């Protein structure tokens, strides 16, 4: 199955989803990007350079770990985890960012901009910009800046300028709009490093291509370690880039079920979630440069979204998934905030793994379904990010009293120094 083999006149479309919905002023820029991307994709040396860069800089290939304790405890399928959390900067985001960095060099541009929600993509972009010598500006919703200071700290110390976006809900979607506004002004010397498989064509295809390295590695590794293909593959879905990454490794394997796990937030009917495909609240719309399922009202204004995981807290979903959902190729489930906290505790205690809150959504669904499967069946989960660097968020999520006392003490100490 090659979903990127577009028919005539339908370039950038996946069924009725995708496309390019941008102001005319960006037409030439997006064309230039598309031409450059096509050259890169057709050039085996580009991909080889990309793989080598990730091996030497980010620690790829990331391993696959068999979770024997958790599998035994649940008494069902054997659970394996693809460890993209072991990348430099702590998540799969670095894959796409390094790829677009190489592409930006080809474009001859000297400045990069990026949106970020939780801060992982901004962190990865600031890291890449420092290595490649690009000027870097990160747009981040003011609400996210306030709740993700550690990532802002690292971005700034890596040399990036972080702009707190004060428009709209002051979260990820507003940071995307701010990037668009920068790009329509500075496109001559600036490349927009979009962080997920959303936005106008060619971004969904391009980001999926860079992330496909996860699935290529994982398929080979699971065959070697488990002796056969997995029965089900689970990945969390915000924009959908890590899920596209791992799923692509199994697109041609008809007996492998692909399960996307969205943010259920406060649950069905709460209207405080980010489940575009697993719940029935989202409808098809056009925003942020592309057509897909969005959480929006009947007049097309975007709804408020919520998740304990900032990286999943987004109105839209990658257009490829809207299509694959229609086709029944990928099943979508949602995990609520409460389920995520419980699954995180269980995973930490039984396996010594600390998945990011985002990735933990995939664990929730896998943990629910594993006991219903037989012991010789195999589950593969993509652990797209690590949680230890999000200690502030996770400590809040777990409501850890000793942590609060520590932070209180630290605050007193800083106040003492300032007075």
């Amino acid at each position, binding site marked *: 199955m090659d979903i990127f083999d577009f028919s005539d006149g339908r370039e950038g479309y996946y069924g009725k989803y995708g*496309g*390019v*919905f*941008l*102001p*005319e*002023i*960006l*037409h*030439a*820029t997006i064309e230039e990007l598309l031409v450059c991307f096509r050259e890169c994709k057709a050039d085996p040396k580009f991909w080889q350079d990309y793989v080598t860069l990730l091996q030497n800089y980010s620690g790829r290939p990331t391993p696959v770990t068999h979770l024997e304790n958790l599998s035994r405890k649940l008494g069902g399928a054997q659970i394996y985890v693809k460890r993209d959390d072991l990348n430099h900067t702590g998540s799969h985001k670095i894959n796409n960012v390094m790829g677009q960095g190489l592409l930006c060099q080809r474009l001859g541009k000297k400045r990069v901009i990026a949106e970020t929600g939780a801060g992982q993509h901004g962190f990865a972009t600031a890291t890449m910009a420092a290595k490649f010598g690009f000027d870097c500006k990160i747009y981040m919703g003011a609400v996210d800046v306030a709740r993700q200071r550690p990532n802002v700290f690292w971005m700034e110390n890596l040399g990036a300028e972080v702009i707190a976006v004060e*428009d*709209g809900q002051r979260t990820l*979607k507003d940071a*995307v*709009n701010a990037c*668009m*506004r920068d790009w*329509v*002004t*500075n*496109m001559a010397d600036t490349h927009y490093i979009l962080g997920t498989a959303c936005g106008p064509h060619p971004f969904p295809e391009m980001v999926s291509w860079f992330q496909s390295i996860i699935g290529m590695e994982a398929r080979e590794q699971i065959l070697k370690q488990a002796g056969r293909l997995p029965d089900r593959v689970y990945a969390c879905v915000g924009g959908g880039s890590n899920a596209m990454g791992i799923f692509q490794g199994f697109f041609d394997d008809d007996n492998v079920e692909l399960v996307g796990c969205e943010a259920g937030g406060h649950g069905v009917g709460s209207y405080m979630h980010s489940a575009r495909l697993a719940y029935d609240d989202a*409808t098809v*719309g*056009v*925003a*942020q*440069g592309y057509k897909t399922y969005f959480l*929006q009202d*009947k*007049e*097309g*204004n*975007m709804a408020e979204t919520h998740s304990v995981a900032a990286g999943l807290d987004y109105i839209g979903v990658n257009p490829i998934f809207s299509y694959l959902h229609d086709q029944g190729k990928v099943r979508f489930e949602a995990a609520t905030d409460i389920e995520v906290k419980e699954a995180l505790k269980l995973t930490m205690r039984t396996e010594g793994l600390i998945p990011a809150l985002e990735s933990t959504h995939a664990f929730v669904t896998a943990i629910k379904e594993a006991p219903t499967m037989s012991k010789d069946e195999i589950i593969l989960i993509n652990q797209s990010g690590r949680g230890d660097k999000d200690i502030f968020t996770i400590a809040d999520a777990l409501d850890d009293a000793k942590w609060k006392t520590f932070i209180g003490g630290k605050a007193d100490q800083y106040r003492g120094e300032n007075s």
Partner: protein
Amino acid sequence: MGLESYIAERKQHKDLLVMAHVVCGYPSFEANMQELEIMHEAGVDLVELQFPFSEPSADGPLFVHANEQSLKSGTTVDQCFDFMKLVSERFSFKVLMMGYYNTVFKMGEEVFVQRLKEAGGVGYIVPDLPLEESAHLHALSEAADIEPIILMTPTSSDKRLAQLGAISRGMVYVVARKGVTGSKTNMGDDVIGLIERCRQHTSVPMGVGFGISSKADMDFLRGNADMAIVGTAALQTWEDSGAEGLKKFFAELMA
């Protein structure tokens, strides 16, 4: 009467027409009506009524704020069409819808064209709908004598301008510079060069917008373009100095 012949008729009496802009429901529909009275008095020829949208990604900070506040106060598409009907019946200037494609998409293109027609609108500006996606909407519009306003920009290649020119009807909107609405544009050779390039690819009247804020800008455009498009500067004036300020602004601009 079509937009093109309306513009031609107005141009018999003056050499540079003016198109103004209000964001529906911001700060309120009552305030919008006051602004429009002033614009009408000043002799404005065409007005864009912007339907607020939650993701106005082609707009600058002032309009972003206006979109947001209007939605927060509960503005609906129904109210915007009702207001458009009121305005088009009351004033002699012509009215366009300005907004983002999702507003059109959610109600359906057929319904949009029909409602626009019923409300007395003569055309629309939908900046995030590129020509590749607009064939169906344009066909519906043509059948209803509604004009889609095409944007031509400084980054458009000659090949692209030719494509845009080929589908232009009513008038084209020449975007004077890169960026979003609301920043100052240096009116100079670049703008003249752009207008000349655009002129090679279309015969319909040309309005120039983005950053028009003063009589000097108007003098610059006179003889080079058919229409000056004034957006942010007028809203900024309204915010800073209310009705009196806005009267003075248009009096000076159109002196």
